[in-house]
């Protein structure tokens, strides 16, 4: 087991290094750089000589390999560098930005899971009833529809209705959890789609298994069968796709934080892309990749705990 974990850890490090290097190469290929964006701004009215001096002091004209060695060495020492655009240490910017995105991720993931579970429960409960079957089919189609809704549109509509029209919650000037409530729930709807689809498919598979018929024959109530037997057994495959959902949350955070004016990592990423602020962008890429890797890692470890069969079969394969 220890050896397995160690191999996985090395694997994760390799993925991190790969993402770091690839992003560096891609940013090098883009025309121009952050120093150019910042100092060639005509509003500053700098002379060509002054701009050349600025470029020299930032080392912007050194060879790509020298820059890469410098950036990699610095990062290995735990120094994420400075943002050229704002002049702040990248570590400080990340420290200020991550809580919002973390809260947004928690609210939207919980919301998505709850939404998926409700869809699933309704679909199962109604499918037993001859009339409800049509309703169940309609509910089964909801994830397909919500996955197609552009998240920025949904959010703008949510703001217009909830905040501007019904005046339930303001969109500006909030902090902490209240700031991510509306954006989190709006983001939850599209990201719940894959969860709900997997959840429903798994629940229908479990429902068709013989032990459910046995439970029914023994007179266990449908509700109890649902929450004590079907849903828990349908949960593991749903959690497996949470890695995918994490990616959707990160991508959604860029749009959501921009629409709602939140100060999270997504907003930071968007600004860093716009100004080609390499240090900031690479730090965000490192964080995102670490998130992906550790969630995949965690779900591999949790799976056997939730479903003993998975651990057994893995062992059987191994020996």
């Amino acid at each position, binding site marked *: 087991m220890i050896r397995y974990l160690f191999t996985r850890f090395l694997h994760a490090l390799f993925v991190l290094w790969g993402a770091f290097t690839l992003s560096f190469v891609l940013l090098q290929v883009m025309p121009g750089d*952050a120093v*150019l964006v910042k100092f060639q701004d*005509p509003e*500053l009215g700098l002379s060509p000589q002054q701009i050349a001096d600025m470029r020299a002091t930032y080392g912007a004209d050194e060879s790509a390999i020298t820059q890469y060695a410098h950036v990699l060495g610095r990062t290995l020492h735990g120094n994420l560098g400075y943002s050229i*655009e704002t*002049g702040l240490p990248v570590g400080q910017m990340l420290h200020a930005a991550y809580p919002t995105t973390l809260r947004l991720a928690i609210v939207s993931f919980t919301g998505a899971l709850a939404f998926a579970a409700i869809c699933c429960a309704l679909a199962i409960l109604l499918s037993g009833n001859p009339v409800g079957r049509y309703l169940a089919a309609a509910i089964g189609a909801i994830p397909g529809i919500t996955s197609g809704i552009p998240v920025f549109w949904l959010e703008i509509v949510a703001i217009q209705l909830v905040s501007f029209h019904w005046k339930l919650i*303001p969109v*500006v000037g909030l902090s902490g959890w209240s700031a991510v409530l509306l954006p989190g729930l709006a983001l939850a709807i599209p990201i719940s789609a894959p969860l709900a689809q997997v959840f429903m498919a798994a629940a229908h598979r479990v429902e068709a298994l013989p032990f459910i018929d046995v439970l029914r024959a023994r007179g266990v109530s449908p509700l109890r069968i649902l929450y004590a037997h079907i849903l828990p057994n349908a949960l593991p495959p749903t959690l497996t796709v949470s890695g995918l959902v994490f990616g959707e949350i990160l991508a959604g955070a860029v749009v959501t934080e921009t629409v709602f004016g939140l100060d999270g990592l997504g907003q930071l990423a968007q600004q860093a892309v716009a100004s080609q602020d390499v240090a900031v962008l690479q730090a965000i890429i490192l964080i995102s990749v670490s998130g992906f890797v550790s969630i995949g890692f965690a779900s591999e470890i949790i799976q056997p705990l939730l479903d003993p069969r998975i651990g057994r079969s893995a062992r059987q394969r191994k020996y």
Partner: protein
Amino acid sequence: MKAAITTPAWATLFKTMDYMPLLRHSFCATLAVSALFVGNVGGYTPPLSAAPVQQGRTLLYLEKQAHKSLYPPAGGFYPNGGILAQVTDRLTWQNTQTLRVEPWIATSWQINADNTVYTFTLRPDVTFSDGTPVDAAAVALNFDTYGKGNKALHLPPSEVINNYDHSEVLDPHTVRFYFSKPAPGFLQGTSVIGSGLVSPHLLHKPLEQWGDGRNIIGSGPFVVQDDVPGKSITLRARPDYTWGPPELAPQGPARLDAIRILVVPEDSIRIGAFLSGQADFIREVEAYDEGQITRSGNRLYAPSTRGVNDSVVFRPDNDKVADRRVRLALLRATDREEILRTLFSPHYPLARSILASDTQGFQDHSAELGYDPEQARHLLDEAGWLQHPDGWRYRNGQILSLGIHVSAPHPQSRSMLVLLAQQWRKVGVRLDILTGSPAMVVLDDLDPHTTPLYQAEVGRADPDVLKSAYYPTNRNVLLQKGGQSQHVAHFTDPECNRLLLAVASETDPKRRLELVADVQNAILTNAYSIPIFEEPQVFAGAAHVHDMHFEAVGRPVFYRTWLDQP
């Protein structure tokens, strides 16, 4: 990685939304008409309110963009100016009605006959918010930095200060500045946000540290209390402030307790939040949103930014626009009134020269800016660009198509260019509207072969603004040889440059204004520029916001502002 990849999709979605104003033409026209009756056109200063002043409240201000480096010479960027105007004082104050330069931190000044030596006497009681006195040494260090820059600290020189040589401290309250050549624009230059005075401690810090608002120590009525980068900034009033500009008397502390500036980039959210009462004041209201603001009983403010008008300028280094007849033809093919009627409101006056009509030295050239598509066609034929059956014009097999980048800071730039493309199409000229990443835009705009056209505008109330915009070593909007660009092969206009230098150094005020007239003449006679409109900054304030003020180039001043909320 995922986040980076998704950005283009996101950008496309928002770009699509940019087109919305075009879809709302007829709606806009209605709004524009309704705005006629309520709008305040031109250099508007709201009347002092008669109601009893209420003090000690917090104003919530929604900004479109986050501030960047708060080094005062970078104060031209609207969000920066909006903060620096509250946090810093200047030596002098330019009266927004008369445009005369009045005393502020400097109580008096003497200027020698050839405008090379300026002596300022300072108020004795002024301090920076870190307790350091605003004395002659501090002021000298400020202008040494703004006048010449500080390479070691990456601090660039200010574009409003020309020919600066050195300073001399005569006594703790008297400072003298020396110039290598006459610098008649310097007195007005001491009044602009770009010359905001900051604590000497700050001037020893590198440019990188000027991004954090909390580091900015000025002597203004507000201090920066908190700064969340890219998100919000909180300003708190200084209780011991007693040296406000005389035009805004009484000169005591600010009436607001605090100003909270939140960055809300999405137009619909900013305006929606304002209309639903979640904010007191917002910047950047597009013309098509003006009607919503006034209909709901709120107030619009559209102070002029003066200076060089919002214009489309040519880069004659590109062969296609090297011929004056081609440039003149495109000027004639531009129906500026249709642009204003379709996209803008009465807050956007039609340009009558390259300078705004409320800038010193303005001369009315409307007669030369008329719309005449017939003459345009004739001129293009004469220049050898003949119309082919496909509708476009060609010369030696080359199509007459010209590129221009959308200019994000200017109101409805994309819509305006789309309309311009439609107008030019009628005479057979193709306008290619380009977009790209910020770095690409910067690079393209330095290359006259990619962008023979450029959207230019510079706000400042002094005629020196002409040099800022057109001189090769300044913004160089025409891309003459001798500027930043490595792509310019030959174009230079020595006569125009001579006039620009003369404006920046002519000491006789009357003669200087004549030179300003000559520059306007030279640029329009050569058809280097198609001036479109005088650019205002449009703000909206709730009905309970009183005594709003705007300095000479339209940046908000919250010093006397108060809120009458229960």
